[in-house]
């Protein structure tokens, strides 16, 4: 499902990253673990098609990302990938529900039942009509998971989802992510420096 080969990336000739090869089968989740500065976020952006590698190949769902135009990448992303960011971002002028509706609109979908079932599944249905800045930290994180899965992606990419959480919440969030991925039929790739997550994943690689 995901196959990378000799991926290299450099920022303005100053920072240079060479990533080890990844080979992930369908129905597998993956933990990518590494210290700060080894290019974790860069790798995630490469996998999400937000960046293009300088050389090497990234094959995701049998598509070669390096050969796609920026427009094709946008469209590939909205159909296949959901992203959970380290810090949740929302459109502040919209309510929780409207944020999810916007995500659906972008992917040419319109399914309020799905929004409802996702919010219920994440236990934040009663916050549907709240503006996102009225939410607690934990609620924000759950809404950002909802945003990542609302368009039924085949792959969920999570960037440091647990770095600022205590042990108890850390395990809660990762279980939640895994459950959502299973419930909605997506694979999960978590990129983190948080070694507490190792025990939750069968397959992991270290950068």
């Amino acid at each position, binding site marked *: 499902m995901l196959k990378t080969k000799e991926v290299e990336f450099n920022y303005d000739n100053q920072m240079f990253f060479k990533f080890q090869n990844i080979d992930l089968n369908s129905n597998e989740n993956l933990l990518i673990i590494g210290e700060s500065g080894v290019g974790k976020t860069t790798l995630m952006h490469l996998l999400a098609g937000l960046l293009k590698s300088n050389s090497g190949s990234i094959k995701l769902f049998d598509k070669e990302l390096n050969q796609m135009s920026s*427009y094709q990448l946008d469209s590939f992303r909205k159909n296949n990938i959901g992203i959970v960011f380290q810090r949740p971002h929302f459109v502040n002028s919209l309510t929780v529900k409207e944020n999810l509706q916007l995500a659906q609109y972008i992917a040419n979908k319109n399914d309020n039942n799905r929004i409802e079932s996702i919010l219920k599944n994440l236990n934040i249905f009663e916050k549907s009509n709240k503006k996102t800045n009225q939410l607690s930290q934990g609620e924000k994180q759950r809404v950002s998971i909802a945003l990542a899965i609302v368009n039924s992606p085949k792959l969920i990419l999570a960037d440091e989802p647990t770095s600022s959480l205590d042990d108890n919440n850390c395990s809660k969030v990762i279980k939640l992510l895994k459950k959502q991925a299973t419930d909605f039929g997506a694979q999960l790739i978590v990129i983190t420096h948080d070694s507490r997550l190792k025990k939750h994943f069968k397959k992991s690689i270290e950068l």
Partner: protein
Amino acid sequence: MNIFKLSIKNIFNKPLSSSISLALLVLGVGIISLLLQLNTLIKDQMDNNLRGIDMVVGAKGSPLQLILSSVYHIDSPTGNISLAEAETISNNRMVGSSIKILYGDNYKGFRIVGAEKKFIELYKGVIKEGKDWDNPYEVLVGSKVYEKLKINLGDELISSHGLRETGQSHDEGTFKVVGLLKPSNSVIDQLIITSPQSVWDIHETHDHDEHEHEHDNREITAMLIKFKSPMNIIQFPRQINENTNLQAAVPSYEISRLFKLFGFGIETLSYLAYLIIIVSGFSLFINLFNSMRERKYEMALIRTLGASRFQLSTMIIFESLVLTISGFILGLLFSRFGVMFVSSLMEESINYNLNSLKILNEEYWLLGLSVLIGVVSSLIPAIQVYKMNISKILADA
């Protein structure tokens, strides 16, 4: 949810900064549109009342005053002239037709004009109810007068001396309403019209201490003249002004002089208003530019959700256009209220009424200008969003 809705939500999310740009634009568009409206309305009204009058003859004084008083009925007359002298002029071979008018009295602030019947024909006045006057002391009443004062056929009006309400009242000056005129959208709407004889009679009895004056000492206030040939407009007024102790004034010339005078003020004011519109454009630009910075994570998020660069840029331009177009609409509303306000002021003080809410051609230009301001001020922010490096923004988070 769509991009357009999102733009509107974004505007309402920042009510303060949005409303400052909006207020500036409303002010700019409103002032220009108000000036345009008033200018057109006043000009229309002035031209409408000017038709068929090439020259006015009256007592010496300010020519503009003569025109304002005897054509527009809004200023005091310059004085009276003798009927005999007026007759001499009206018998001149260059004169096509002439109408003598006399002032003297008012009824509750509305002028009572003694005039020949041609006067009503000149303004295409039509009697709605009742009949023309046959005898002295019978009057026809203009539409605004009877509407405002609730005058009916057969009513008796006791006039006051002079042209203002405060004048002393004539016990003898009782006029009988024999006819009501249809609205004609001209000066006769605000006049009470009677035969010249009525006015002569009333003042003869009033000034009975001067009873010895000869019969031909009768006076009129002014005479409206139409020439046989438009060519005469150059020669004839000058002849009168140089060779007689009467004054001749050409309305079209005086009115264009008047417009030149306050046209300068209008021009200055409209430059100011255009400046305000440009400032509103800058404020809009700064507004969008700042909100781009504040919302860069939002933008990055929307991109990661799969929106294209183009969609995001469109959103920014939409936001700007929604503001400028609503600014234009509110500006027009503002100017219409302004016109109504000025019109009510004018109606109170000089019995003139301006009421037209049609959209002028120049206002379509204003719409174009508003759209242009909207596009130009959002162009740089939209290009910035287009070029945005989402990976970098997200990595900095």
